């Protein structure tokens, strides 16, 4: 049986030096994969390598593509929020969702509704630089509701979030996995996700 993602003997790092021992794991549709490791263990580098932004030092990464080509294969939420400070949350999310789904129309009303579920209705049209760190994080996490890729790579998704928002994001991630998405995430917080696989970096 082919897996959605299979990683064999993967070593990655920036430059020549590998950050962790060779890694082997697989993930199938609906899996929630937690990547754990200390600060500097290479969690973000691993996510970047899985996303294809960095080339691995050695080893292989095999993605099984989706039969439906309209489904974007991959979404990545990094430490940086990918929000322009001078634009409003709605403007920022319009671009981000258009990049992921060029063909579909994600209109402004949908984006505002999503922001409302995250408690940001009032700030939807304010410049992003007026938002607090946690609010900015919530804006960028609104992508979890707007974009539906086959695989989500999440780097510390709930950093800076309060407990209510954290719970809502955890529920959303569980629902996405229930719908067949693969979730690969890193966290130092308690998120209460039913991890189906764990990968430790050392």
């Amino acid at each position, binding site marked *: 049986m082919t897996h959605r993602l299979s990683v064999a003997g993967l070593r990655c790092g*920036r430059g020549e030096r590998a950050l962790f021992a060779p890694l082997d794991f697989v993930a199938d549709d609906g899996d929630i994969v937690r990547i754990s490791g200390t600060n500097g263990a290479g969690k973000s580098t691993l996510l970047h390598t899985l996303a294809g932004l960095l080339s691995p030092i050695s080893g292989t990464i095999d993605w099984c593509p989706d039969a439906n080509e309209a489904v974007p294969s991959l979404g990545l939420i990094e430490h940086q929020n990918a929000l322009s400070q*001078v634009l409003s949350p709605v403007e920022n999310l319009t671009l981000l969702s258009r990049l992921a789904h060029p063909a579909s129309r994600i209109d402004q009303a949908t984006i505002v509704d999503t922001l409302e579920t995250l408690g940001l209705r009032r700030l939807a049209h304010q410049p992003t630089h007026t938002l607090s760190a946690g609010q900015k994080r919530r804006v960028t996490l609104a992508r979890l509701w707007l974009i539906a890729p086959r695989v989500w790579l999440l780097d510390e998704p709930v950093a800076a979030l309060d407990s209510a928002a954290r719970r809502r994001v955890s529920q959303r991630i569980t629902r996405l996995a229930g719908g067949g998405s693969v979730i690969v995430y890193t966290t130092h917080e308690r998120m209460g996700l039913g991890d189906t696989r764990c990968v430790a970096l050392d």
Partner: protein
Amino acid sequence: MRRVFWAVFRRELAIAGRQRGALVHQLLFFVLIVALFPLGTNTDQTVLIAVAPAVLWMGVLLSVLLSLNGVFRADHEDGTLTQYLLAGEPLAVIALAKMIVHWLASAALLVVAGPVLMLMLGVSLDAWPAMILTLALGTPTLVFVGAIAAALTLRLPRAGLLLGLLVLPLYVPVLIFGAGVVRAAIVGLPYAGAVYIMAALCVLAITLGPWAIAAALRIGLDA
């Protein structure tokens, strides 16, 4: 592909519209370079007219260079660039949209300001068409060529000086033809040939530049 192009185009235009201060700074920089020059030389009309094309074009070169320093920096720092790299569409399309807006928002002002400053230096109105034409053809070339180097030096801290060292030698053809055409127009010589060469350079930069910018951005991130 077109949808992504317009989405990036609108986003960049909105950002440029909200950072109008930066545009004014660039224009003032250009005006100051040209306005200070006569103070450093004697104000003899013949001397000024002889050097006016060179002064104007050097001003344009330096203003464009300054504006390019930050062209990808904000996107890189806030993580938008990573999302561009992951988008299913060619990165060159995104680069093209970004650079067109960058030209509209910064260099287009120089095309308007250049001829006005030329009058200030005492050059006759006869040379106006040549000045406007060469600026309109030359500034896109400068923007697209310079952006390749800006993309390459993106990951380096304080790359401003290095960017100048990389880019200014590449600007030599535009400087030679641009200033040459204006000089020819001032003394009444035909200049069509040089304008055609500038047009060719401009087309080349706009069509091939985005691909080179995209490649440079990818190289910069995988390091």
